[in-house]
Structure formats: C-alpha cells, structure tokens
C-alpha cells in the first residue's frame, strides 16, 4: 500500500493538529471575533438587543480617566515586575547551577509558588501584609513593617510587585537553568585559561549564549504582567482608591460591574492590540541579540 507523500502528510497534519486547531477556533478565536462586534455596540450584557453605535465606544475610552490611570499603573507595574522577576529568576538559576547541596530540593521550593493559583497567592499574601507584617512591626518596631501595607499607593504597588515576582521568578528560573546547563563547558574553560574573570565570563560568554532563553523569559514575564488580574483582584481589589487597578481589572469592572459590555470589549480590543505590539517588538529586539556557539 503506497499512498502519495503529499496526502499522507496532510492526513497526519490533520490528525495531530486538527483537534487542537478546532478547540482553539471554538474557544479562543470565535469568541474573540464575536467580541469584536460587540465593541461597536452599546449592550449591557443581559438585554435582548445590542444597539450599534459605531466608533462611539472608542471615543469614550480616550476620555476615560480611570482607563488611562489603569494603563499608567499597568505600565509601571510591568516595568518593575519584568525587571525584578527576571533578575531574581536569573540569580536563582546561577546559584542553583553551581555545585550546591540540596540543589534539587531548592529548585522545587523556588518553583512551588508558581503551582499555587494566583487567587490563592493573593489571599495568602494579603494576610501576610496586613496581619503578619503588622504583628512583626509591633514586636520589633522596624519601620518597614510598620508601614500601612496595602493601605496606600506606594505600599500597595510594591505589594503587588513583590507577590508577582515571588510567584513568577521560579518559573523563569527553570527556563534559565535549562539554558545555563547547555552552555558548553569548553568555551568557559577556554575563557578562564585566557584569564577572563568570573564577571567577564558571565557577561561575554554565558549571557550571549543564553539569549534564546532571555527572549522567552522576557516574553512570558511581559505578557503575564500586562495581563495581571487574579493576584491584584485578591490582594487589593484594585484599591486603595483604584491606585492598583490593572487594565485587565478595569476591563472586567467595566463589563461586569458597570454592565457596559460593549465599552468593555472595546477596551479589551485596544488592550489586545497594545499587548500584541509590545510583545512582538520585544521578541524582535531580543531575537536579534541571539548568537550561535
């Protein structure tokens, strides 16, 4: 039995990628395009008729101060979270690729926060910040713990950043570890024979060789932080006074709390375009820095 190569590979393609493509189309693509329609309507999410209003929703968005504020917050938060989570993840990876005892145990421990869901993390950390920190502050008198944690803009901002970094850096660590153990030993040995210091070896040999991992890690951290929702919802609910309201939370509130489904989807559409642009830009930039050993 001999069938032509073309049709055979076509059947295989269909069998292997077909189900996934179908599921993706039904669960992601279809709602996405249906949502696009609603962004041109005024609809409360319940009523039987949605009125077509053209571009009205998009005009409203640019006059919506809370949406602009949430964009500012999300941008600041993303910058802080991406830098810190990658730094911490990379440091941990460097540390745990050295000959350390209980290396595997430590890797598991640092990865663990990622296994716990974001909502749960938020509630646990809310307790730590509000009750735990206050108790430590009372006992020791250290001013860091006596701050009104989550109670004002600054502490709420850093509270959200700390929890995000804590939960994501373990995942990034795993990516960095897998890249670091693949760096050829002979290159590093050659460099040290030539007299390169540890810092120089890291800067000029290791980092350029793990750039593919950096691309992935940055991309993940960037898209996670931009879309941040569950940790913020359970940690601060966007408060105090909306100072930690991320764009995702703002969209959710607009659609489900203010019952403006049309306006909400319009915001989501704009947000999608912005995130897609920024992450593509980042991937393009870091890809150009990748080198071959």
């Amino acid at each position: 039995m001999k069938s032509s190569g073309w049709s055979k590979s076509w059947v295989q393609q269909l069998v292997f990628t077909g189900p996934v493509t179908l599921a993706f189309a039904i669960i992601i693509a279809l709602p996405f395009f249906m949502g696009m329609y609603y962004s041109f309507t005024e609809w409360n999410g319940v009523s039987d008729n949605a009125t077509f209003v053209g571009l009205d929703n998009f005009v409203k968005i640019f006059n919506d101060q809370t949406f602009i504020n949430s964009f500012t917050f999300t941008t600041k938060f993303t910058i802080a979270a991406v830098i810190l989570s990658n730094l911490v993840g990379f440091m941990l990876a460097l540390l745990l690729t050295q000959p350390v005892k209980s290396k595997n145990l430590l890797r598991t421990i640092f990865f663990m926060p990622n296994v716990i869901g974001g909502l749960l993390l938020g509630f646990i950390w809310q307790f730590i910040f509000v009750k735990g920190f206050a108790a430590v502050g009372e006992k020791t008198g250290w001013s860091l713990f006596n701050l009104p944690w989550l109670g004002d803009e600054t502490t709420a901002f850093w509270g959200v950043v700390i929890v995000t970094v804590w939960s994501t850096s373990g995942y990034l660590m795993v990516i960095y570890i897998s890249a670091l153990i693949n760096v050829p030993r002979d290159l590093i040995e050659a460099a040290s024979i030539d007299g390169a210091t540890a810092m120089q070896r890291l800067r000029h040999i290791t980092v350029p060789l793990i750039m593919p991992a950096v691309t992935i890690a940055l991309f993940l951290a960037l898209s996670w932080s931009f879309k941040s929702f569950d940790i913020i919802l359970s940690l601060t609910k966007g408060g105090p006074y909306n100072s930690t309201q991320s764009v995702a939370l703002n969209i959710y509130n607009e659609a489900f709390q203010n019952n403006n489904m049309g306006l909400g989807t319009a915001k989501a559409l704009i947000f999608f375009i912005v995130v897609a642009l920024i992450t593509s830009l980042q991937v393009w930039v870091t890809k150009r820095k990748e080198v071959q050993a």
Partner: protein
Amino acid sequence: MKKSLISAVSAGLAIAMLAGCSTSNNGGGNEPAGNNGGANNGEKVTLNIFQFKVEIADALNRLKADYEKENPNVILNIETMGGGADYGAGLKAKFASNQEPDIFNNGGNADLTTWADKLEDLSNEPWQSDVIDTAKEGITRDGKNYGLPMGIEGYGLIYNKDLFKQAGIETPPKTLTELKAAVEKLKAAKITPFSNGYQEFWVLGNHTFNVALANQDDPTSFIKGLNEGKGGLVGNPVIGNWFNLFDMMIANSNKNPLTTDYNTQVTLFASGKTAMMQQGNWTQVQIDGITPNMNIGILPMPVDDSEKSGNIFVGVPNYWVVNKNSKNKEAAKDFLNWLATSETGKNYGVNEFKFIPALKSVEVKDQKVLGAIANDILQYSKDGKTSGWYFNQMPEGLPQEVGADMQAYVAGKSNKDQLVKSIQDKWTNMAKK
C-alpha cells in the same frame, strides 16, 4: 506501521472528545419556549433556583425537602453563589450558556433596569397585598411589580452597650452633639470608638454615602437630578453636614482602616476592641460566633441634631424574581406563592433564614430568633424612624467609584471639595453611559 497506529488512536480520541462535548448539553438548560403548562401534566418539573445568600444555603436545603414532600411532582435544584463571589457575573454566565435559572435574585432599582428584559411580571400574585409598601418600590417599574422581597435589612451604628456603660454614657446618643460627647467619653476611657472596614467599597460607597443621600429633603428627586446630569452635590448643605459625621468616624477609627476588611471590622467590634461599627443586622451571626449573647444595639448615624437624621437605614437587599423565558414559570410562581403565604414558608423566612419579614402578616413571635440588632431595627421601623437605601438608585458601578474616591479622602489624598466634585463628575459620566 507504528505511525499510522498512533494516527488512528489520536483520531479516535479526538472524535470521542467531540462527542463528549455534544452530549452534555441537555442537562438543566431552559430553552425559551411558550409552553407554560409544565407543572400540570403530572410529569416531574425541575425548578432551577440560583441564589446568592450564602448564609441561608443550609436552611434552603431543609426547605427543599419540605417543599418536595408537599409537592411530589416538583424537584428543586438550588444553587448558591455569593459571599465573596460575583453573583452578577455568575448569573450572566448562566444566561449566556443557556442554563437560565427559573428563579433567581435581583437587587431592584438599577439591577432591575439591567435585567428587566428577562423578568416575569408578578403584579397579580396573591402575596402582593401583603408586602409592606417600602419594600415594593425598588422592584416596581411602569406600574408592574417583578419580585418578592426576601426580607428587610437595616444598618446604622452598632454599639457595645457594656463599653458605653464603662465609659459612663447613660443614654444612647441620637443626635450629632450627643454622639460627639459619647465619642469623647469613650476616648477618655481609652476605648477606640469606631472600627471602620474601609477596605470594602460598599461600607463607604453604599452605606456611608447613603447617609448623605437619605438626609436630603427629597432623596428620590435629588438622585433623579444627578442622574439627569443637573448636579446638585457640590455646595449641597446636607453634604456639608455629612462630613461632620464622616470626619468624626475617620478621626476616631481603629488603626489602618483602609486595610481593614469586613471580617476584621466585625471581629474588632465583636471582641470588644471597639465600641461602635457602621454595619447592619447581617453581622449578628458572626458576632454570635465570636461573643455569644453580646450586649449590643443599634444607633442612628446623625449628621446634625435634626429629627430626621436620627433615623436608621432600612432596605430590601434582594428580591426573588422569575425568569420570563422559563418553561416552568407557573411552577416557579407557585413556589414563590408557597414561600410567601404558606405557614411553612413564612416560618422559614423568619426562623430559619432569620430575615426581618417584609410581609405584613408575618409576626416575629420569639424575640431571640432574630437577635438584638434586628429587634432594635424592628422597633425603629414601628416608630417610623427609618430612611431608605438610596444607593440602589445610583448608576451601576458608581458605588464602587464613590468608594474609591472616599478611600482617597480617608487617606488624605483629596480634600472635601475635591471629593464632592469628583463624585458629582463621575455620577454625571456614568449616568450618561
């Protein structure tokens, strides 16, 4: 050959998966249908009830057993989603996925506007004449009434009578001057006057802000003016007075009120660490859990020394409503009728759900059943010393924004003028949408 085997197996799996998806669709779905006679033809009818009072979930299960015994051809399928969860979003998801419940909850007013397309007119139900007048307003639109009130709730300043006595306060304060004096005495006795759960938007944006609305001469037309974008908040004298109360509560608060959530607020009060809290009778169960038989009562929230500002605030938190498109809506109406008129149904309302009745014919026989706060509220109601819950008439989403603005004021990020201006601007904006 191995490859084609794998292909075949995964193709089989894929088909099984898709088949699995398509068969699970005929569970509890209610396709909109004109067939109303479902209850009469001897077949079993399943009534899907989707409700949000977590506190009564257990009692509802006992009620289910009783109702099914009396009505053997009806099965009640009760689902509860509430507490910290978002009931509104959950309900929308049910409607979007064709699992529309037959009976669900509606908060009235703005919530009624949202759901009006889906609600059955209940104006001609036998229990309508029994509902007290103030409980009808919120669920009536264009002369049609859409819901059966679950019960009545009230809030004000809940106070610890023992701590008041300890501080030497003889008579419960009813005016602003008296309240100020009481706060001073409490402070002198080293007792924290208020526990404020200002992390919760609704403590501020619904309940505290309502005090400013309810003390207007004609709250409904005042709110109407704001909804029409005419303003009226900036420079309003009642708002000016309202700051007397609000500022006093902020100045005499527990530590870090902005990170104090509802649970912490109630716990602080119930464990005797503060003398007062702005809350309602729904806290009774939690207080009983911490300090049983606590000696407590409820005080008004005066903004000045006038008679009217000595009222507490009473409203209907929720109504039972019937889905207009349900094919079992006659059975659903029968169930609500049973709940409102039968002895068993009435008994559940008071003794099991512990709701302050919104029906005239229901008597509270045992004072202990509802607890100290509810008894005080009943007394205020009898004396006509109550005002309404006007936050229900605000545009949807506005209480959350007002709450955020008030948090900024509590944190010292804005002053009085900025707060009032910001609320008015947001009100105008959100009413327009």
